[in-house]
């Protein structure tokens, strides 16, 4: 990367360390932090959306819709995350390719042949000839969908509980004013449920942050992959040989996660204060008294 780093084996001390920490592989490592942040930025709203739909479905008055919502929540919450991650990503990947093969391949042969999964080359997603970027983007997308489904189920349960926690008197008053069921839902229930949902959602956000190393299980090159790869001892075959430094790399990751979760805690505390304002809860009441 830098001219001074052209011959790493002749370097010593700080200049060696500087060149080591700016090698192309380390730059990939630094970018992988963005991968993790990007995953969180996409997954959190997606899981919130899934959870909202799931909770709304679960408390629907139409029985089949309600069953669907409840089965979704129960199934995903009941299966260990790791099993879900290992199974679902393969199933999703092969399902997408099978669906595509029905459209683009002739004949439509059954793809599961003994140990092999075989579709025509045109049905591969992404195609074999695609740039490596698309292979990574596709793997990332599978991860986002899986995270959204898993965390969506937990979010659905939190929101379902929060919707039931809104005082019945509030809804009855709205009905007495002649609002329809939809109007009560939109105008009274949704604005008031957030303050009940927030502690649960905040918890899930923290768990989601801590669950991002699962990306590594899905074959996405995240910070855990790079920490293990860079930290492992390196022989003279490498430009920068060194011993087993995994401890230091994992310490770095620990610091990253601690700082990140601390910032999240502060943000969540602020959000709770804002949402409590004017609510018929103990926190809302305390704020009203303090102001008066």
């Amino acid at each position, binding site marked *: 990367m830098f001219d001074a780093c052209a011959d*790493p084996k002749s370097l010593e001390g700080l200049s060696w360390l500087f060149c080591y920490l700016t*090698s*192309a*592989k380390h*730059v*990939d490592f630094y970018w992988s932090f963005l991968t993790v942040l990007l995953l969180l930025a996409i997954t959190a709203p*997606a899981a919130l959306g899934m959870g909202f739909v799931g909770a709304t479905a679960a408390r629907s008055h139409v029985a089949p819709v309600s069953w669907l919502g409840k089965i979704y929540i129960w199934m995903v919450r009941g299966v260990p995350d790791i099993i879900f991650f290992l199974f679902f990503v*393969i199933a999703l*990947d*092969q399902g*997408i*390719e099978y669906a*595509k093969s029905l459209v683009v391949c002739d004949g439509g042969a059954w793809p599961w*042949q003994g*140990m*092999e*999964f*075989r*579709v025509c*080359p045109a049905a*591969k*997603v*992404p*195609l*074999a*000839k*695609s*740039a*490596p970027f*698309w*292979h990574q*983007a*596709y793997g990332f*997308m599978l991860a986002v*969908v899986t995270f959204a489904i898993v965390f969506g189920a937990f979010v659905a349960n939190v929101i379902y509980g929060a919707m039931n926690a809104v005082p019945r008197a509030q809804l009855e008053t709205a009905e007495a004013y002649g609002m329809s069921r939809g109007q009560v839902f939109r105008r009274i229930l949704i604005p008031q449920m957030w303050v009940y949902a927030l502690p649960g959602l905040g918890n899930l956000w923290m768990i989601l942050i801590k669950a991002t190393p699962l990306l590594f299980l899905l*074959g996405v090159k995240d910070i855990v992959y790079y920490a*293990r*790869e860079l930290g*492992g*001892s390196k*022989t*003279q*075959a*490498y*430009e*920068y*040989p060194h011993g*087993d430094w*995994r401890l230091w790399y994992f310490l770095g990751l620990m610091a990253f996660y601690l700082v990140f979760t601390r910032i999240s805690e502060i943000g969540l505390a602020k959000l709770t204060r804002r949402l409590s304002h004017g609510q018929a809860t103990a926190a809302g009441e305390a704020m009203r008294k303090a102001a008066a």
Partner: protein
Amino acid sequence: MKRLLIATALVAASGAASAQDIVRLGTEGAYPPYNFINDAGEVAGFERELGDELCKRAGLTCEWTTNEWDSIIPNLQSGNYDVIIAGMSITPEREEVVSFTQAYLPPASSAYLALSADADLMSGPVAAQTGTIQASFVAENGMQLVEYATPEETVAAVKNGEAVAVLADKDYLVPMAAESGGSLVLLAKEESIGGGVGPAFRKSDEELRGKFDAAIKSMKCDGTLDAMIVKPEYFGPEAKTWGDAGKEGC
């Protein structure tokens, strides 16, 4: 819906890429000097140079990808890549699920790496990487086996005292011993296991396997394969080569 759009966009974008067929080569990227990820973040090592040369001779455009060792065969079968070039020994068990070409490396010895030259292999667990011929060998020969997912971890286990020794390909262990400053030594005892190292293909991919087989043969015939094996950065002048045996039927 949004996800569907993204998926559609991905499919459309990937379809627009170049029309040339690309063969995807899968490797582990953690087993120097066979294959490893160098400091530029690229696949390097003996198998990188070999794979590129084979693709050139077979007239194929190839692209490298890495995969964890323990799922490297399942992911070949589900079509994530087309060839495994990852220091994989040809064994009857593996031949039941994938097909190999002729070997590109002759059967190599496996060696034990331990903290001292008089380590007793029966006194405690012996480390090996999961799913390797060495792991099967340890288990079948009455030693206590402890398995790890990566080669790196097997060596770390010996340093930490979790295992009395590690059994792995000698070519992988020699630099480990040489650069440990005397804290790790190779035992005199060596094992001869496996039937040479070759690339693996899906059983349904007979055509691609044929192309690679021909390319390996041509490299044996003109001696370039032997020259590549003995390069100092790979296996060195002491390494076993094909010699005249490789030139039969040229």
